[in-house]
């Protein structure tokens, strides 16, 4: 979202190999060693080659342990940090004046907006000492190149897009975009998040990320598809839930997602889906979401049983191939969708993946030069690939450094806001959620194999807090937010700061962490604030005592 607004396309601007040749690596809200282990290999190659690595994270993780500096920031205070860094860089004249002048706009207003964000002020919000903020800002500005990467620690907040814009501001300030060894890199959480967006699986977009409100775009697709396309963007997920609450949306088709367990405020989601007139779920398993469905379409396992492509975090479009036969009545996603349309009276052809890909690339610009043959030969291709002789693009937005930079990249004035749910005497602990190395999201995939570290869900609880509450190491405790209550074993851990507790969402059948999380969402991206909810902790006998 933030990247689209500034540069016109919502994708990482660099290649993984840029980590090898950068001078500075700034990871914010990213635990790459656990959530993106193979990107972390590239990051560590850069460190071996001499890059300084700074990791900004409220928790100690496998990633922070490898950093030259772990900046332990208060949950949800990233904008305060980056605004203060910008303040120092501008105050001391350390920014890239030629780049700012040549390729950006809105600098004056931005500089004005951060003028009050002194390191001292940010220190009060972030919990980071002012001299460390000053030092970080100066080292960042002095580095000739910098790779900035982030993950859900930035985007799973109610002000996600502002967080991203804050990081983009930092990059623009020092010219760290559009060239080798410098860039802005959202590390995608799922195999084909990038590809889904690229292919128009967004309410306002058509394939190739083309804007549905643009009449020329619509006409092109209408001519190709022989049908009329509404100029009104559809609902995003948050809007769908609101429409369900208001009874304006009565049917839902869910493909390959498990919102009953993956979305914030699970109990509300379950009620809304249960109240629908029709729920159709297409999945490889009878997930808790599928169990609520009126109709379930059993699908192929995409990476092992079907043909197609995925696009990764460096925009590399790669071939996916069937390695085994699917069981029983399972069918390919493309077959299911086309057959459904046909049974509803539309004359859709049942096309194979390659035929569909070829149709798509004719209707787009970024993918036009990608063929199945070239992907095979070149181990995938990084878009944009303008024609069949184009080599693909390892770096985006190089135009910003050329004599005609094209549309200027705007700075954004972003101000810090605390997480939506403040702590109170009733709910005095901050629950933040995340991933663990061996597991993945709601565990539909990762809970089937037998990992030596699989002990189910558990909470990281600082020993000081545990002792204050009289909680033993490993004791099963009750955790309550305004939305729900779960029981979970709590283990002592100094990975979290006192006052903050951590849980994952990998074992929702036993511990539905998302019963606790808050469905406050970013108005632009629709992402919920999984990273910050207020909870209270209690020992089970106390909880029982209260109830009795």
């Amino acid at each position, binding site marked *: 979202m933030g990247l689209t607004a500034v540069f016109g396309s919502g994708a990482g601007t660099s290649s993984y190999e840029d980590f090898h040749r950068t001078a500075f690596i700034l990871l914010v809200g990213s635990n790459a060693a656990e959530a993106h282990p193979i990107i972390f290999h590239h990051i560590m190659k850069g460190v071996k080659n001499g890059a300084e690595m700074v990791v900004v994270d409220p928790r100690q993780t496998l990633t922070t342990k490898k950093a030259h500096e772990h900046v332990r920031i208060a949950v949800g205070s990233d904008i305060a940090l980056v605004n203060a860094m910008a303040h120092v860089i501008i105050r001391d004249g350390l920014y890239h004046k030629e780049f700012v002048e040549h390729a950006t706009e809105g600098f004056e207003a931005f500089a004005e907006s951060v003028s009050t964000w002194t390191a001292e002020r940010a220190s009060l919000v972030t919990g980071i000492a002012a001299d460390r903020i000053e030092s970080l800002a100066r080292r960042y500005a002095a580095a000739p190149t910098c790779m900035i990467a982030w993950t859900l620690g930035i985007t799973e907040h109610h002000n996600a897009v502002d967080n991203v814009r804050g990081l983009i501001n930092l990059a623009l300030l020092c010219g760290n975009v559009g060239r080798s060894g410098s860039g802005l890199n959202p590390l*995608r959480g799922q*195999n084909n998040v990038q590809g889904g967006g690229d292919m128009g699986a967004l309410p306002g977009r058509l394939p190739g990320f083309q804007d549905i409100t643009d009449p020329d775009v619509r006409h092109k697709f209408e001519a190709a598809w022989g049908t009329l396309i509404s100029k009104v963007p559809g609902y995003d997920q948050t809007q769908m839930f609101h429409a369900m609450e208001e009874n304006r949306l009565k049917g839902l088709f869910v493909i390959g997602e498990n919102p009953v367990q993956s979305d914030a405020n699970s109990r509300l989601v379950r009620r809304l889906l249960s109240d629908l007139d029709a729920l159709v779920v297409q999945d490889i*398993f009878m997930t808790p979401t599928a169990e609520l469905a009126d109709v379930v379409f059993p699908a192929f396992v995409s990476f*092992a049983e079907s043909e197609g492509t*995925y696009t990764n975090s460096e925009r590399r479009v790669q071939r996916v191939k069937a390695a*085994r036969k699917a*069981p029983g009545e399972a069918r390919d996603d493309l077959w299911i969708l086309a057959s459904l349309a046909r049974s509803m009276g539309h004359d859709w052809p049942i096309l194979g993946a390659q035929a569909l890909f070829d149709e798509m690339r004719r209707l787009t610009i970024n993918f036009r030069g990608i063929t199945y043959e070239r992907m095979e030969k070149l181990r995938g291709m990084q878009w944009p690939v303008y024609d069949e002789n184009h080599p693909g693009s390892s770096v985006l937005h190089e135009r910003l450094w050329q004599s005609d930079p094209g549309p200027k990249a705007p700075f954004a004035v972003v101000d810090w806001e605390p997480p939506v749910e403040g702590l109170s005497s009733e709910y005095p602990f901050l629950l933040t959620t995340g991933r663990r190395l061996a597991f993945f999201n709601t565990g539909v995939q990762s809970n089937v194999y037998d*990992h030596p570290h699989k002990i189910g869900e558990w909470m990281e609880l600082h020993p000081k807090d545990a002792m204050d509450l009289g909680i033993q190491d490993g004791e099963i405790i009750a955790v309550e937010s305004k939305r729900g209550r779960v029981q979970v074993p709590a283990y002592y851990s100094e990975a979290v700061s006192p006052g903050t507790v951590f849980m994952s969402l990998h074992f929702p059948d036993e511990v539905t962490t998302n019963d606790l999380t808050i469905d406050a969402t970013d108005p632009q991206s629709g992402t919920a604030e999984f990273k910050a909810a207020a909870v209270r902790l209690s020992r089970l006998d106390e909880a029982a005592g209260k109830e009795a």
Partner: protein
Amino acid sequence: MHDQLRLTIDGVNVTVPQGSTVKDAIEATNQSVPTLCWHENLEPANACRACVVELKGSRVLVASCSRAAEDGMEIQTTTERVLNSRKLVAELLMSTSNADLAFDLQHLAEITGANPGRFSGGATWERPLQDDNSLYVRDMAKCILCYRCVQACGEDAQNTFAISVAGRGFEAHIDAGFGRELPESDCVYCGNCVAVCPTGALIGKTEWNLRQEGRWNEEGLTRTDTICSYCGVGCALTLHVLDNRIVKVTSPADHPVTHGMLCVKGRYGYEFAQVEGE
């Protein structure tokens, strides 16, 4: 041009770019170099001596995999001294280690005419199988201490540093730190050590079981390249399928994302794809 180096390999002139190794130069003459410890994505460990060659002016044989090529070097790869040395490497390793799955070592023995039994009857690295987790098995009687696993676990890929070589001389062995068992160590079970092991000392549990049962069938295996279904890194997976079941996952060593390395989810987290009948 000063960035090109001219060498003579067995009397043949060859030109290679600056930064090449002697092994690269030999291969530029369409000869192959036998190796055990060398791996295309790891720093040379100089452990095995299978790749040694004679360098004019050098008293000792040099390891061609790690020795930087220099302008004017004269290399001999087929002298009696070289062939004897390589043969001895094979014979010594085969006297101490179980080479059943060490295909590179078997190849070295074959091309050098080694007698695998020449030094048999002495001490061996026979030791109990370590079968303490459900993802991979360690059969260290097959280990030849090539260091590949140590480097893949360490700074050449994974940066976990869970294992290293401990002990000296014949007591040297791969250790998870302070003699700890693997599950108590820093191991994250990525299996990158398994991926680079050239002897089957480290082997996936499923492959191990199938081999024990006599059901591992190379001819029946299909290998299909696809992309991992977990996070957004986009790692290439080679799915090894036997009787419609994924039995092993590797990644192509020349893939620009993975360089043959994977995480635990990509390498071992595939069982969900073949849960049936529930």
